[in-house]
């Protein structure tokens, strides 16, 4: 990094706020809105201070209606704006599902490239915060199955900022899911300058030889803890942060498996039809002959995420990851 770069300790909330700030400053077409993002600065304070800085017509609160939020973004973006909308919790995105799947994902194709919908749909997701019902789900795979949108998930403040800047600058509709469990739990030095991280590429967090561990979002932290246990047990783990749920970075994953022969995917989502299954399919397609053990998935159950008092039954612990690492390596 060159000497001019100014670094600052940020958590993910700060980093996202910073990315929005940069894009709002840089491009008058950028508009930020959603429920309570204005005066309140968002229930997680992600948009704090932005309304004051950029005015009510650029950062504002909406009526309580998700289809309206995403649907108006479709209209705005077709007309040339670049809306970044917030869904308060990913569990409340479903009223907007039709606007996402039927319009945001299809407008470019439908209009044969005449119109595009450069929308970013931000939403906190995932468990582990002792929340009420519908506040803990990880349903990213649903969006992965929708042709026409991209789905990305950062795992650190640094990534969150760089990926969000890419998302806002993308001409596609980006589902930007934020692991709320680590909104404030991880702090790191983040450049105050503008930088971007390309969407669609996974990130090899640490190299290893015995098994490939794929995770993303809040699960990266758990995976890293599991790696300590694995190291103690003499197992060398290659950790990949998927970053992009769709499109999946096939090459990075396949190349890693070609080296390790083994792969485990960790996701908080329900077990069936999740991201892990897709990765298993990809690995079977691209690295079948290298596989020395069945690709393993570590996921939630095919159940509702329990309320706080039962959530520990559902959540994935570093021990659970280690348990499966060991089983996979010993296979």
């Amino acid at each position: 990094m060159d000497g001019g770069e100014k670094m600052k300790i940020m958590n993910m909330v700060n980093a996202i706020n910073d990315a929005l700030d940069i894009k709002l400053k840089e491009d008058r077409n950028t508009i930020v809105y959603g429920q309570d993002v204005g005066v309140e600065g968002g229930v997680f304070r992600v948009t704090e201070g932005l309304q004051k800085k950029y005015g009510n017509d650029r950062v504002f609160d909406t009526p309580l209606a998700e289809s309206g939020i995403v649907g108006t973004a479709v209209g705005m973006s077709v007309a040339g704006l670049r809306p970044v909308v917030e869904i308060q919790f990913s569990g409340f995105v479903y009223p907007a599902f039709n606007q996402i799947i039927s319009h945001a994902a299809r407008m470019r194709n439908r209009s044969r490239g005449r119109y595009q919908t450069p929308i970013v749909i931000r939403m906190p997701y995932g468990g582990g915060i002792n929340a009420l019902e519908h506040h803990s789900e990880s349903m990213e795979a649903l969006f992965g199955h929708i042709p026409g949108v991209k789905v990305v998930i950062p795992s650190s403040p640094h990534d969150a900022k760089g990926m969000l800047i890419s998302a806002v600058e993308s001409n596609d509709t980006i589902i930007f899911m934020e692991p709320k469990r680590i909104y404030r739990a991880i702090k790191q030095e983040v450049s105050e300058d503008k930088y971007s991280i390309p969407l669609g590429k996974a990130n090899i967090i640490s190299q290893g030889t015995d098994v490939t561990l794929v995770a993303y979002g809040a699960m990266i932290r758990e995976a890293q803890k599991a790696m300590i246990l694995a190291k103690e047990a003499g197992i060398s783990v290659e950790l990949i942060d998927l970053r992009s749920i769709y499109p999946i970075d096939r090459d990075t994953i396949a190349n890693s498996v070609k080296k390790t022969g083994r792969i485990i995917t960790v996701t908080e989502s329900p077990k069936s039809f999740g991201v892990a299954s897709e990765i298993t399919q990809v690995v079977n397609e691209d690295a079948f002959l290298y596989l020395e053990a069945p690709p393993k998935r570590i996921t939630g159950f095919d159940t509702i995420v329990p309320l706080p008092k039962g959530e520990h039954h559902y959540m994935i612990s570093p021990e659970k990851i280690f348990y499966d690492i060991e089983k996979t390596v010993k296979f």
Partner: protein
Amino acid sequence: MFKEYNPIQDKLFRIIDDDGMIINKEWMPELSDEQIVNAYKEMLFARTADLQIVSYQRQGRIYTYPPNYGQEAISGATGAVMREDDWLVPAFREMGAYLAKGATLKELFLYFMGYEDGSLFKDAKNILPISVPIASQLVHATGIGYEIKYNNKDQVVFAFVGDGGTSEGDFHEALNFAGTWKVPVIFIVQNNQYGISTPFSVQTASENIAIKSVAYGIEGIMVDGNDYFAMYAALKNAAKRTGEGNGPVLVEAVTYRKGAHTTSDDPTKYRTKEEEEEWDKKDPLKRLKAYLIDKKLWSEKEEERVIPQYKKEIDSQFEEAENYPESSLDDVFQFMYDEMPEDLQKQKVEQEKFLTWMEERK
């Protein structure tokens, strides 16, 4: 106008009666004879095309098509009021409005023949493609309205939906957002009394549709949608009002779908001949024609003269559409993303490999 025709009083805004006689001089719009004749001709053209398409469909030359038959005055008036820069946000049953905006019949034919390019409306400025998921397009209109307001543009959005569409949650959210944002959008509900087979009385217990405007604190008016002058005057007024920053307007155009829902529907199953005949009396073309004939601006002879011309024009555009180049595999992939993701490229390449194998196999 909006005070006088407050929908709470269930008042219908009309200018001519069923026989084309002016019954409401006060609101008669200032239109030149030529403009009126042109309006009639456009409506006649649309109707001729409509009937022609139904026959193409019977010949198996086009897929399902939703006729506008009986609703021509609404599209006609919209077309006349819309300016080049204004936005048109279609549902799927307002052919005349697309044509007025600069879309071609050929493009419409392409659409209903199943060509992607039928959604392009190449020479029409500020028009969205046809929207199939009912009412979902209304929220887009509100969003476009926001952009107009944000950039202080002199534009108005004309957004269409049917009576059935007013039942969807998106109708509510679109009008509610538009009301609080005070954006320049005219929501035009073509109340043609049916959503496929479902009569208006099953859609809502609301007295009329225009009255739903009060739920959003916006203006609403119930207009005789088969009365060209009334539709013109109402839309003109609405456009002025909303363009001046007074917020959106809900225009209910009371009309009747004289044809089937689509070419695969059979209305005799769910409505009576008597009802159809009752509405025949209110036919929008019949009424405007009576007006014109009365004013000596039009004649049966003239009509007999233009219809064959129209038919020829329609046939010629239809044939052009029929000779449209085949869609390519590229067409399926190229507009999915701004840049095609690698994996998608691979999917295309794999398919090409398979096609080569197929070729070789023959």
